[in-house]
């Protein structure tokens, strides 16, 4: 799942075009030749774009729900099984209902990403004049003559904020019943792995197919593209054009500048956003304030407001501050602030999901035993939150790494990020060099991801 973060969606989209485009799709050519199908499959429609986007977003849903499922108390499921419930019944009546806040949060989160998704609709939809909200907005707000139409972007934001209100209200109503989902309690809590039995083959097949079509194929495609002078479908003819020219022509000074900025962002943004997220979650789920849900709404709002609007507002804000006081315009500091606030919704979904499942009786027992609040946090809450916190930290770091919208709008030569450098290469017509830069980044990031896998593989709730 983590691997997918390093593959820009436009590569995946280009790959799927080569597979399932009605005219040039390789898979379609096979289907025509082998089965004589008249009407081939087509990716250049709304379901096609949804499929490609969905494959990419599955990683985000995974991280938002995995932390919750990790802390599900095995005793509940075991009790059900002891009472004769089948695997499916346990799944439908115990596991999934308990994970409902996490599922809902990730559903809402991905829903808003889907509405704002830009690169897949741009690569796949625009060529066939199939528009989504975001690609339509791009077309009408980015004229080749005149200035960008920021008013339209603001109008779009108003709609999104209204939608955010509705979604946030729905999510809040689930949070109001938080006690129903508290599964980590002091009475012999333990999580357990579910034995799949013969289902394991099906599960492995599913994971393998998912891995091949959503991760392996785009990675191979990216590597393939990086060796070509112009983008071509894999063929014997194309083999003759392979070279390392794209690597030789990489603009290293620019790339190293972009990389160092991205690394700074990957370190600072998760720390800031998760710290604030924990505080917000604590207030929402543990305090008795009447206005506690307002905190959650505030935490969710940055996600509902398109990053473009958020970033544009930050530009206006930075320009309003006299430079002799504090000049943030075009700085990396402004980008850190904006991205930390943007990540707040993601961070708070994770910390909400984790905290919601920790029964307050653990803390109450500690208080009863004379522990101070600091001790309760240090010795009970934080250790239980650690896996979720680590998950959140890594994922916010990775999402920060690939975030494009805010860094593009707040762009300056001093704060250019890696993702912006790759996007600019692609947008400027150098798709293959963008692939080469991405392959290098992939190679650099892989050891970090492996370290993460090894670490999270060892850390389990209850250990």
């Amino acid at each position, binding site marked *: 799942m983590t691997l997918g973060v390093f593959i820009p969606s436009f590569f995946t989209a280009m790959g799927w*075009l*080569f597979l399932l*485009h009605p*005219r*040039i799709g390789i898979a379609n050519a096979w289907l025509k030749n082998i089965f004589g199908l008249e009407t081939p499959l087509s990716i*250049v429609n709304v379901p096609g774009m949804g499929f490609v986007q969905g494959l990419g977003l599955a990683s985000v849903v995974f991280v938002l729900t995995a932390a919750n499922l990790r802390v599900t108390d095995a005793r509940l499921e075991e009790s059900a099984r002891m009472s004769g419930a089948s695997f499916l019944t346990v799944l439908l009546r115990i596991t999934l209902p308990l994970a409902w806040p996490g599922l809902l949060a990730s559903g809402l989160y991905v829903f808003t990403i889907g509405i704002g998704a830009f690169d897949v609709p741009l690569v796949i939809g*625009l*060529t*066939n*004049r199939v*528009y989504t909200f975001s690609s*339509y907005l*791009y*077309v*009408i707000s*980015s*004229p*080749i*003559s*005149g*200035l*960008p139409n920021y008013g339209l972007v603001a109008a779009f934001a108003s709609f999104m904020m209204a939608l955010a209100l509705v979604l946030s209200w729905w999510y809040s109503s689930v949070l109001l019943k938080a006690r129903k989902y508290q599964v980590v309690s002091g009475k012999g809590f333990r999580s357990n792995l579910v034995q799949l039995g013969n289902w394991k083959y099906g599960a492995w097949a599913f994971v393998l197919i998912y891995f091949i079509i959503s991760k392996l194929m785009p990675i191979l495609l990216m590597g393939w593209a990086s060796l070509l*002078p*112009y*983008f*071509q*479908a894999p063929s014997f003819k194309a083999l003759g*054009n392979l070279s390392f020219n794209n690597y030789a*022509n990489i*603009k290293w*000074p*620019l790339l190293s*500048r972009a990389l160092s900025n991205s690394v700074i962002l990957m370190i600072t943004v998760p720390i800031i956003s998760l710290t604030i997220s924990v505080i917000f979650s604590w207030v929402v789920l543990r305090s008795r304030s009447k206005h506690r849900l307002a905190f959650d709404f505030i935490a969710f709002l940055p996600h509902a407001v398109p990053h473009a609007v958020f970033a544009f507002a930050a*530009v206006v804000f930075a*320009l309003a501050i006299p*430079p002799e006081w504090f*000049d943030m*315009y*075009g700085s990396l500091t402004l980008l850190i602030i904006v991205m930390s606030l943007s990540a707040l919704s993601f961070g708070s979904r994770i910390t909400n999901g984790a905290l919601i499942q920790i029964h307050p009786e653990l803390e109450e027992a500690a208080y009863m035993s004379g522990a101070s609040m600091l001790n309760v946090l240090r010795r009970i809450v934080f250790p239980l939150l650690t896996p979720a916190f680590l998950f959140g930290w890594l994922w916010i770091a990775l999402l920060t790494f690939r975030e494009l919208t805010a860094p*593009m709008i707040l*762009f*300056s*030569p001093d704060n*250019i990020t890696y993702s912006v*450098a790759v996007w*600019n*290469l692609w*947008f*400027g*017509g*150098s*798709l293959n060099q963008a692939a080469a830069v991405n392959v290098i980044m992939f190679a650099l990031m892989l050891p970090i991801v492996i370290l993460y896998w090894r670490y999270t593989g060892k850390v389990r709730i209850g250990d």
Partner: protein
Amino acid sequence: MVRGNRMVFILSTLFFAILTVGLSGASAQLASGDARLQELIAAAKKEGRLSLVYGDGSMNVSNGELVARFNKYYGLNVDVQFTSGPSMPNMVANIIQQTQARRPASTDLVIGYGNHMINLIDAGAIQKSDWENWASNIKIPGIVSPDGAAVALQSSTPGIAYNSDVLKGDDIPNSLQDFLLPKWKGRIAGTPYAASFDQVAFGLWGKEKTLDFARKFAKQIGGLIRCNEGDRLASGEFDVLALTCSQGNALKPAARGAPIGFKLASDAPIVVLLYVAVPTNAVHPNAAKLWINFMLSPEAQKLQREQEFADLHLLEGSLTAKVMAELQAKNIKFVVFDTEFYRKNPAVEVDEFIKEMQGIFRQ
């Protein structure tokens, strides 16, 4: 005779006096021009850097050759830092924003077409220079915009890009009108921003005729791609892209081996000037001015021809001028789109037209 000799003497004295004054004036002007150039070089030395931000496809300075030649040209050692940036309209908007907020410009040079330059000039976002006094390569009329702020760098010739594996010989379309034939249905790509059709409308066909064409053309096109997505022609996704933003959109991928050809549309002979200018709040304005003068030198123009497939048709030795002359001999009359064109045609009117065109293309 004596009287005649005296007359000759007086006239010759006067002639030589005028000549002497004239020559000394000219040499004084040369000397002052040279002094001004030296002043700029000294100032650029102090600045020590030139920060360039523009779209990656606009002007390739990253190979180091152009930078090395620039430094050699003036005896400088300026660090030229290139950052690939957003699209031209976005960059222009950024520069205007930075000027209005009295912040340093994020780039020392801004690139754009005539319409972008008019936006910048009207916002007071680019600075004027006394090019005629010192810039040895900027002498021909028409290179600099009348107010002295924008300098033409390249001539773009939008046209028809096509997949050269699929289309050969007589199959290659000659004109925009050709695309209305039934055989092209679904095989053509347009651009989402209706590139170059504003020039067709305001400089050649008129608005009504262009809109009428667009309505028929929109039914023929299979989809929309951006100007620099040549890969999508090479892949066979589309056979043709019309109109492109410039010749480079086809010729650059073709130079990398992509099966893409380029042809000017006989009924849309357009030349659009690409300008450069120094932002009012540029951090390194002197190095930027020297860079502009250098980019118009024969050696820099040659490099642009080789790497960008573009040069300025107003300059001697221009390949674009040669191509234009060949077509003009066939009675094709080019219309040049400079800042003055956009001054005469209000931006609001052009923008409204483009929006209408985009609406038609979207359907």
